[in-house]
């Protein structure tokens, strides 16, 4: 079921027949998922539905038992993690994963897409272009004034933003965010929703989130996962009124 109006374009991410089984338990079961260019897709589903596993499979953290993940014409299931990143896939983890004893500046600089190999890292120079890019991204994630702050002194919400910023440094074509507003205040959630709207310009975003208000405010389309399979897909309203979804997810 391809969305009308996007049929002309090939989806940027095409997941087909994806299955992963852990000792016989199929965490993801014959999953098909297509994400278009410039689309913000939110994946929801009860605990254990396989949402995080799907992200793990895309970024190479977990290897698929069978099936394919095509990203921009490249088959990701056979690629090394670092090559998947270099191909343009950025992933934020569920718990903010930042370098606590480096500053905000250094955290962002670490994701600058240069000096990624041993000798280029050894002779990496903090050029004006690097500084400009870091400052630009820092302003985007509301940390423009905290560049010299050590990262462990940031609030939980700021850490979440910092990790999003680290992904932005890589300028990925596909941004995957695992619960980006977990632990955020109401105010921070609103800011994050604005941030996502801004940064989704020119790239696709795949978000896992539980907060339905937040989902409503950002999602173009929602996919409901249940027991490793797609249960429903469509607009937030259509998904929320789907009896199957109400049964397994919103019900009881």
């Amino acid at each position, binding site marked *: 079921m391809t969305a009308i109006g996007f049929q002309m374009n090939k989806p940027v991410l095409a997941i087909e027949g994806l299955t992963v089984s852990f000792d016989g338990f199929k965490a993801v079961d014959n999953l098909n998922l297509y994400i278009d260019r410039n689309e913000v897709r939110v994946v929801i589903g009860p605990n254990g539905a396989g949402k995080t596993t799907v992200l793990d499979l895309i970024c190479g953290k977990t290897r698929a038992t069978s099936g394919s993940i095509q990203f921009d014409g490249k088959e990701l299931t056979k690629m090394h993690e670092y090559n998947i990143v270099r191909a343009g896939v950025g992933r934020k983890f569920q718990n903010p994963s930042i370098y606590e004893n*480096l500053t905000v*500046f250094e955290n962002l600089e670490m994701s600058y897409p240069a000096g990624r*190999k*041993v000798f280029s*890292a*050894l002779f*990496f120079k*903090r050029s004006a272009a690097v500084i400009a890019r870091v400052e630009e991204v820092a302003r985007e994630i509301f940390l423009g004034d905290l560049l010299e702050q050590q990262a462990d002194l940031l609030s939980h919400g700021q850490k979440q933003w910092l990790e999003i910023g*680290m992904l932005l440094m890589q300028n990925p074509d596909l941004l995957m965010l695992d619960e980006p507003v977990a632990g955020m205040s109401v105010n921070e959630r609103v800011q994050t929703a604005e941030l996502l709207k801004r940064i989704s310009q020119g790239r696709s975003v795949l978000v896992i989130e539980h907060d339905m208000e937040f989902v409503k405010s950002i999602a173009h389309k929602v996919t409901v996962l249940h027991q490793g399979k797609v249960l429903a897909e469509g607009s937030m309203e259509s998904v929320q009124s789907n009896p199957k979804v109400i049964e397994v997810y919103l019900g009881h």
Partner: protein
Amino acid sequence: MNVLDKMLAGKPNLLGVALLALLIFVVFPLTLDAFRLNMVGKYLTYAFVAVGLVLCWGYGGILSLGQGVFFGVGGYCMAMFLKLEASDPVSTKIQTTPGIPDFMDWNQITELPWLWVPFHSFSFTLLAVIVVPVLLAFIIGMALFKRRVGDVYFSIVTQAIALILTVLIVGQQGLSGGVNGITDLKTLLGWDLRTDSAKLVLYFINAALLFGCIFIGRFVLASKLGRLLMAMRDKEERVRFSGYDVATFKIFVFCIAAGFSAIGGAMFALQVGFMSPTFVGIVPSIEMVIFTAVGGRMSLLGAVYGALLVNYGKTYFSESFPELWLYLMGGLFIAVVMYFPNGLAGLWDSHGRQALARLLRRSPRSQPVATSLPQAVRVEPKAPAPERPSLETQP
């Protein structure tokens, strides 16, 4: 006291380096007799290993319990050259086969083994001292890091390698000199190594090489690669999913540490006049980790002080109370791990350096473009250093 403190400081300020240089290049040679100075020279060969461990363990989180392997291989390469020079046909004419090392003759070997032949060449030997251990480290690194063997498992494997190499050396008596090692090393290109003047010259060469390694270490730590090492140690997944091939960075730093150790080993063979499996196995490898831990595994300079102090203590106590020394060293290690995980350098950092650090921190604000100095200062953990995950991998 303040002066001593500054010397222990691991921060890449040049004052600390200058003070250490003063101590090693001026104070020791002026105050110690030839015998004691040679002993300090020997201690300083261990400092090469300790400096390498700061990079690989302190910053990279890779606890190798097999650095003696690289120290030993470097030392054996040098010793093989010196032994061949000492085994010229004239001085070995009483042997059944003149012209081969004496221990080979005792083992009924009648021809120089192929492994030894290239060590007739001094330039080959100099190359081999570095290349062979680094290649070995590269192979070990490829085999383990590419398969994501890390933490305590890596430590165990390196320890096993140290044991295997010891068994191999002891077992191949005809090839290696067995448990006695390679002894009676006399001259280097005709220059008698046993004289006091030769020992003095070697001491200075050794010290200069050590400072060379410290400067390489400082360069690595001040670069982006240095920050990546710490990032990998604390958040390996994040680094991997930021587009870095984590394994190659680990292999690189492990190879550097191996190269440093090997230089130390070669200088050991030159200064002490022999090389034996005693310096290859598990015990010396762990001792080298202790030198690093005591001096401060986050401090290149601290590691040098650690090697000097622990070895001085070892000599002093094993002269006076030989049975006590092992317990003392064990106790020292436990104390370091439990009470001052960043060693002597860490103690100085947490007591009294803060004032200086505050001054230093103010300066980069005005010029965030950062020359390597303020940038590197910010990398160092501030305040009382938090417990690092790598500590938990210690047995």
